[in-house]
């Protein structure tokens, strides 16, 4: 594609691509503006005035803190479980050829390939069938299930890069299976796992569809927001929370990108 560097894009293409990116970003920027509006009762534009007072109001809202705390705890535990399960699965699939590897890949991807509502309702009816009451752990159960795939995708790509001869070299030099894992495999897949974990955290932190079926009366931050969307009661607080959520989810995405940018497959391609 030598000539591409010399020729610049046709004007029409530039406009279409730029407009497309603007379409993706302007609504999110708008969220930042609304967090400062003085208007309480409607979504009036342009905002009649700007204020910082809603940040203080939001800061003093126990329900927001409670929802945030639950979301962070759910995301942390789900990520931990997904890290273990996803890494094990990726290790098994990439290290050995065995009957049924394709099936296992499909099984891991299925929870995000199928619409979330199906996962949600399936889990809910299973809980009610097994008479499991809704709890922190029922939320985690659902989240960990669809977070596995994010860790798996990242880990599988990296495992392929850790060539089999590195592991053989380690064993040849006298390291047993555990030493080889500790000194060779873990350092080589570490950043991929960290990236996968960050994406899993972001995925869980933001999840609402499955959660509505597995949370019962508990309120994660997305559930709290959903209630505000359906029945707006405190618009200014919602505006501030929305902005915070945008920032909180951007950080892991940027982090995961910088951890994997040198690799052959950059994280996050398959949400």
């Amino acid at each position, binding site marked *: 594609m030598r000539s591409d560097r010399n020729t610049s894009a046709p004007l029409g293409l530039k406009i279409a691509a730029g407009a497309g990116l603007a379409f993706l970003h302007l609504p999110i920027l708008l969220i930042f503006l609304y967090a400062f509006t003085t208007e309480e009762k409607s979504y009036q534009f342009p905002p009649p005035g700007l204020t910082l007072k809603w940040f203080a109001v939001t800061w003093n809202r126990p329900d927001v803190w409670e929802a945030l705390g639950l979301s962070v705890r759910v995301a942390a535990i789900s990520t931990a479980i997904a890290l273990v399960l996803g890494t094990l699965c990726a290790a098994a699939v990439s290290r050995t050829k065995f009957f049924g590897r394709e099936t296992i890949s499909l099984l891991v991807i299925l929870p995000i390939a199928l619409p979330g509502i199906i996962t949600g309702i399936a889990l809910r009816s299973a809980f009610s069938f097994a008479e499991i009451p809704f709890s922190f752990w029922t939320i985690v159960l659902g989240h960990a299930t669809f977070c596995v795939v994010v860790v798996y995708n990242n880990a599988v790509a990296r495992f392929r890069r850790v*060539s089999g001869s590195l592991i053989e070299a380690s*064993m040849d030099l006298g390291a047993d299976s555990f030493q080889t894992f500790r000194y060779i495999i873990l350092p080589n897949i570490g950043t991929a796992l960290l990236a996968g974990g960050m994406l899993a955290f972001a995925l869980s932190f933001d999840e609402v569809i499955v959660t509505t079926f597995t949370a019962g009366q508990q309120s994660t931050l997305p559930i709290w927001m959903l209630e505000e969307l359906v029945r707006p009661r405190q618009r200014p607080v919602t505006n501030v929370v929305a902005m915070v959520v945008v920032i909180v989810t951007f950080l892991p995405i940027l982090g995961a990108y910088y951890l994997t940018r040198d690799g052959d497959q950059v994280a996050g391609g398959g949400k």
Partner: protein
Amino acid sequence: MTAVLFQQVSRHFGAVRAVDSVDLAIAEGEFFAMLGPSGSGKTTCLRLMAGFEQPTAGHIEIFGETAEGVPPYRRNVNTVFQDYALFPHLSILENVAYGLMVKGVGKAERLKAAEEALAMVKLPGYGTRRPGQLSGGQRQRVALARALVNRPRVLLLDEPLGALDLKLREQMQEELKALQKSLGITFVFVTHDQGEALSMADRIAVFNDGKIQQLGTPEEVYKRPATRFVADFVGSSNMLPPDFVEMLGFGRHHASLRPEAIALGDGPGRKHVSGRVTAASFLGAANRVTVDANGTRIAAMLPAAVAVPAQGEMVTLSFLPEDLHTMDGA
């Protein structure tokens, strides 16, 4: 003492017999080559010695001790890998010290040993670099140091020079040979390059189809190939069909004749054949001439000083009777 002993060792992958009932005894202190085309079983034999593969059948001993069932990390045998397999996340010094580290050798002691090993392969002071910062030849030396620092009783080398360019390869051949002599460690190396095997090894095992075709010194393998395969694979021999050999008065056998044993013109005590030159090419140190003698194609390597016959010219070629090597069967 026997360093490595194979008794009727087989390794099957499904229906494929990668190694098929191989018997082998490598002496202590020997520089041993396993030569053959890809898929001939030589690399699998090396992996059986290292412990990366387990034999399907048969018995393996290393210095008189049973090796089957023993994982690689419990064998005092080290490997230089074809792709070097240096750990990309560790420095050169940490790479070399790795074997001592996992065996629990103290930090000061193992780093000192690693420095010494790097000096031995002529890379002193390279310890702080990363594998990615070294050239192919340097990486190969690191791989060698990393294996030798453990003082293995047998060093295995998998196509050790395959990835290097010609000049570097010749230099490393000499260095490896000198290193082996001074350390006295048994070296076993795998190669598909017959020149490498002939120039470095004390003894060569020629592999094909999972079996050893011939085991002998380089001179034996080169001059008296046991089978047509060996004659064809080691060097480039003229394969003469039984009719032709019979006509020359050697009885009805297949036979091989080295191109460099053939001279232009006849002489006393020599056997001769006549034919028409079909091709002639200049190779620098020699000229290669191909002659069609009654339908049998014969290649001759003639010294550069001899005038090259023109294509289509009728010529007489001759050789000493002892240079023609007859063999039985295929």
